[in-house]
């Protein structure tokens, strides 16, 4: 996790909030550093994490996680992390027909697909064990990323339903958190993606939006991060709090600074 981002979000692993939906989105840039941040953050916060990784392999997250101070292999072995490796499972479900319902069953279906098996997988993974003692602090579902589901033929409404079910179970019933990444297609006029993004935007408590600079690529400032705190369940006349920072990604850390205050410029 990035200490500077923790400061901006006003959290530490010990005081992680519960019952929240965090939406990560990126526009014209790659927002996957946010996924690595939240993964290592919740692992360090001693939460039980279910990571639905649809877009990259396990070793990718593991190697970056080691740079950030968490070992995914250890976490997986001792049961703290349940990792669904989308790419490997997709090959399994597509080429070798499975008997029992597989979380990625929708890949074999012809029509717009149903994410219920995936929801049941998440439910099974994060179910609180009735051993009496609380082993982990709270369950966390992390999804990287939801836009890929649209590319695989699942409709935007089905994805919204899936997140709704996950939110109801993980956030409300088990007081856990859900973090999901959605790409913003910008001017590519991807209607399904816009529906998904807007729908999730209205349900989230925290939105982190990584944008490329409007002026183009820059070596010292990789992009701009907009943080928006929301209160979706309380209609309020107050404006939601929002902050904007620029960032530069380094080998093991991401440094944040106020707009225009990049160390390269000063």
């Amino acid at each position, binding site marked *: 996790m990035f200490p500077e981002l923790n400061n901006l979000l006003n959290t530490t692993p010990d005081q992680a909030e519960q019952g929240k939906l965090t939406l990560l989105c990126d526009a014209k*840039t*790659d927002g*996957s*550093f946010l996924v*690595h941040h939240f993964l290592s953050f919740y692992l360090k916060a001693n939460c039980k994490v279910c990571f639905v990784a649809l877009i*990259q*392999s*396990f*070793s*990718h997250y593991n*190697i*970056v996680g080691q*740079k950030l101070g968490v070992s995914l292999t*250890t976490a*997986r*072995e*001792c*049961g703290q992390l*349940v*990792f669904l*490796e*989308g*790419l*490997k*499972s*997709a*090959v399994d479900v*597509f*080429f070798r027909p499975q008997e029992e319902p*597989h979380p990625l069953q929708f*890949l*074999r*279906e*012809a*029509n717009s697909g149903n994410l219920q098996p995936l929801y049941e997988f998440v439910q*099974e*993974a994060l179910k609180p*064990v009735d*051993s009496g003692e609380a*082993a982990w602090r709270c369950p966390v579902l992390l999804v990287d990323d939801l*836009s*890929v589901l*649209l*590319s*695989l*033929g699942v409709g935007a409404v089905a994805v919204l339903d899936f997140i709704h079910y996950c939110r109801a179970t993980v956030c409300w019933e088990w007081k856990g958190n859900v973090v999901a990444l959605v790409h913003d*297609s910008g*001017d*590519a*006029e*991807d*209607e399904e993606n816009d529906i998904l993004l807007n729908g999730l935007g209205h349900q989230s408590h925290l939105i982190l939006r990584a944008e490329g600079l409007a002026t183009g*690529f820059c*070596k010292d400032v*990789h*992009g701009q991060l907009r943080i928006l705190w929301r209160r979706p369940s309380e209609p309020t006349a107050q404006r939601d709090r929002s902050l904007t920072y620029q960032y530069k*990604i*380094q*080998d093991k850390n*991401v440094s944040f600074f106020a707009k225009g205050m990049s160390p390269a410029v000063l």
Partner: protein
Amino acid sequence: MAAAASCSTSTRSTGSVVVAASRNSVTSFQRRGPRASGTDSGCSRLVSIAGTRPSVRNGQLLVSTGLPALDQLLGGGLAVGTVLLIEEDKYNIYSPLLFKYFLAEGIVTGHTLLVASAKEDPADILQELPAPLLDDNCKKECDEDICNHKTESNIKMKIAWRYQLLPKMEARPVSSSRFGHYYDVSKRIPQELIEASKWHGFFLPEKISSTLNLEPCSLNHGYIKLLQFIQNIIYEEGFDGSNPQKKQKNILRIGIQNLGSPLWGDDICWTENCDSNHSLTKFLYMLRGLLRSSLSACIITVPTHLIQNKAIIARVTNLSDTVVGLESFIGSEKETNPLYKDYHGLIHIRQIPQLNNLIYDVSDVKDLAFKLKRKLFTIEHPPTPTVLLPSQTSTSRGHSPVW
């Protein structure tokens, strides 16, 4: 394999799909640790394979694209396990060249090839590959080696008889210690090189005629057949580590031409709201899954200028790792632009993968142009004019010189 990490709570998740794989899964993202110095190959699981080298940035295994200039722009080469997407130029003149360079590089370094096309027979594609530019010494050696290989018989060794028991090395026609070769586009690759190489062809009209007994799914039939073909080759030849008897590891180079064009049965190039909207993206996802778990690298050319729906182009870009776009000047107003008079087109590096790394890796140089002379395909930064005449300012949109 699972280390006995004892934790206070030993709740093993029973329903987990990804219980730690007990077999040695060879992924291509093996970190080349300090022990793997190349000399002691017994220690590292990834023995150094001909035609590959580790990246200086993150130790990832790279192969050459066949164009050393492009290798440099992509950060050293193409990472094993990733897809290189070439967005075709308007009349499909230059993208087949990049495709052929990739395949020729595979033949020269001894990699196995898998060529898939809906338009041309893969055997014909291989005949048209460019000839490698070798030094003369090297060429004489490879002629000799090939002669020796053909006339070699079981000569019993009298003195060094223990060496008789060792398995014979495959004769490699060309020294494969170099990474990245240059090719002469005006000459064809020598027939001996093609015959000495191992390749598999997938020609869609031949494969599609057999009856299909698959459940209906939203992938179109040509793509399903191609995926099964690729998966078969990967599995049978052990590129995914499933055959541990294979001592000499090798890379599988996959080349798929004109993916997404109507010849593959896809209609994304015809209409904006088509039925098989997800065929191509689903195919790319499954392909990524196959590549990530095997020692292979893939080049795909896609006619993105024909795809009507911009959203699909964005999705295709997101599902590919490296994306290079070619824009030829033929027929465009840039043809008469004095800035570009020596060049044939622009090359855009749209995306570079960010694998095993946090760092945002974008190519520094943005304005790149390419030209195809008789022998070589070169990529350069077009020179900025030092004196800007009034007539030039009107034609050079957005390319004003930096003083």
